[in-house]
């Protein structure tokens, strides 16, 4: 069963189409990864699903009902974890969750139980009387999640929920997402961290210029680029590397350079490894290692969009 169905969705700001005739569906029980660079149209799509923006054209159905005609029903069944931490610093953790859960119609004992349950779930049960101004970034992020889940939504939208936090909190949040999913929530997850998406998402859509350009499991997406190979060359320093000269080599699709690694994406059928190495020797880059990587989502994204996810 599809929890969410989007058909021919378009959102225009003046002449600019932030979302351009998008169609996709999210099935019940999925953790659906939404990948796209800044300005690709992810947030606009999410805002339309959450009824924060009106679409210019197209339809969104949640649990089989149009959200435009059943806004209250749709809102009641969606929990949104915004990219920015959206909590009141002058209210305790408990009061924050209770206030937002109260807006979803929870009252009395149910409200108390669900509030406590949500705080326990994100590991803030013992901090329920504390004010968020005394919390670390990771704790605030977890409270941000608790505020979105106390009403037990069918669909949880998480927009970059791990931005700017320590690895421990990130792991906690990723485990929480998996647990929420196991408990029956369908999740839409957006992130700039490809490894997170790869780790937790059961299906991924890549968005570019307001359109879905690829959609499937990570294996399906990786299979799209079997005709390309990823060569990582370890060097003492990448400083002298002439990137444009590497790009000019036949078959090379893209070149990325980090401190001591040169990452070349190339057409699989073209035998150009010798020429790449010769160019690096010419650049006096002092080669230390050469290895061919299995295709990953980063490479898929780069191949499909021509830019890095964090561009």
């Amino acid at each position, binding site marked *: 069963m599809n929890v969410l169905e989007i058909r021919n969705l378009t959102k225009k700001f003046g002449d600019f189409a932030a979302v351009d005739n998008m169609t996709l569906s999210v099935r019940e029980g999925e953790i659906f990864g939404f990948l796209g660079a800044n300005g690709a149209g992810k947030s606009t799509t999410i805002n339309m699903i959450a009824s*924060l923006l009106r679409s210019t054209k197209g339809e969104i159905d949640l649990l089989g009902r149009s959200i435009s005609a059943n806004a209250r029903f749709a809102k009641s069944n969606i929990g949104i974890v915004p990219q920015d931490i*959206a909590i*009141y610093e002058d209210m305790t953790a408990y009061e924050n969750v209770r206030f937002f859960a*109260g*807006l979803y119609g929870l009252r009395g004992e149910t409200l108390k139980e669900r509030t406590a349950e949500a705080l326990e779930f994100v590991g803030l049960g013992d901090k329920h009387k504390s004010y968020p101004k005394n919390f670390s970034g990771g704790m605030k992020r977890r409270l941000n999640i608790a505020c979105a889940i106390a009403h037990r939504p069918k669909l949880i939208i998480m927009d970059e929920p791990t931005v700017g936090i320590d690895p421990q909190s990130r792991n906690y949040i990723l485990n929480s997402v998996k647990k929420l999913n196991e408990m029956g929530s369908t999740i839409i997850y957006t992130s700039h961290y490809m490894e997170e998406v790869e780790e937790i998402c059961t299906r991924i859509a890549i968005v570019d210029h307001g359109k879905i350009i690829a959609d499937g499991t990570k294996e399906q997406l990786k299979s799209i680029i079997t005709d390309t190979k990823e060569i990582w060359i370890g060097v003492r320093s990448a400083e002298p590397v002439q990137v444009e000269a590497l790009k000019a080599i036949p078959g090379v699709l893209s070149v990325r350079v980090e401190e001591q690694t040169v990452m070349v994406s190339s057409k699989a059928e073209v035998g150009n490894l010798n020429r790449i190495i010769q160019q690096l020797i010419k650049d006096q880059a002092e080669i230390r290692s050469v290895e061919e990587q299995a295709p990953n989502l980063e490479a898929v994204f780069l191949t499909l969009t021509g830019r890095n996810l964090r561009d």
Partner: protein
Amino acid sequence: MNVLNIAWKEIKTGLRDTKTFLLMLAFPIVLILILGTALSGAFSTSVKVGDMKLLYRSEVTSPQLAEYWNGFLKAAESQGIRAVAAEAGADGRKAVRDNRYTAYAELGDNGIRFYGSSKVSIETNILQGMLTVFADRYNLVAAAVKENPAAVPGIVAAWTDAGDYVREASVDPKRQPGSIDYYAMAMTTMFALYAAFSATYLIQGEHARKTAIRLSAAPVSRAEVFAGKIVGCTFYNFLILLAVVLFSKLAFDADWGSRFGIVLAVLATEVLLAISLGLALGYLLKGEGSRSVLMIFLQIASFAGGAYFPFGETEGVIHLLLNLNPLMWANTALMKVIYENDALAALPAIGLNAAVAAAFLILAVIAMRKREAL
């Protein structure tokens, strides 16, 4: 229920911010104290009367007149006038000129001669007035003795009360506020209007805290969010005003009249007007723009509304313009309620406050509908 939930949250977080609460409480109280003390002279309707010392010489031979004169002296003494009989050979006029006595009276069978000091004219006039009353009455008694002696005891008995010589009267019989009374009222109404400032943050604050997205995503209508915020903010600001009113009453003995409920009703509707104004401006003009416009409006309204000094009678266009000011109509209503005990005078102010508040809210709702999110 959502409205109450949102309103309660506004009240709770407002009260929890003790620094702001105390500042909002202290500011009007300090101004009441400063302006009320500094401008107390401008509001005073009483004149201090100094000691009155009457030097007299009595050469009366009629026992009836002597007895009546003694009765007058007793009555005068009960009014704080010190009457001293002049020693033989003493120059009474010189004693007055030397400022040792307020006035000098010479009493004979043919009448009274009075010499008053021009240095203390009020005291002199009082003594002169009392002696004039005494002389008139004595003449009446003298005539009665001749024509109808039986009526004399009755006439004299009716005059034994000291108040018969001195009667308090006022040019303006209405009660008037003292400076503390006036500024307690004027500062309270002025700060009621300043509640508009906090209202500009009601929605803008949600955007700044990023919580607007949660409110918009929840199954709550924008009207409910609006209503909750208005109710909460109005109640919170009204609580502050109530504290100012009570403090001024208890600490400064400010006069708030006997119709306390009506006074509070005027203040409550004025706060509602201010909140609606702030909310509408905050919605129509984003960011600091709304607060700049509001500051200009509030300064003009405060000045023209009599917050810093009361306006006298005005006429024509000026009168019309001044009365378009919410502060003016609130102050006018409260003056009548407090000092003339005229409860009905509050109705125009309450009605206008509610109508203008409704107009601003409609404006805010129209602006809100044009937006996609909160």
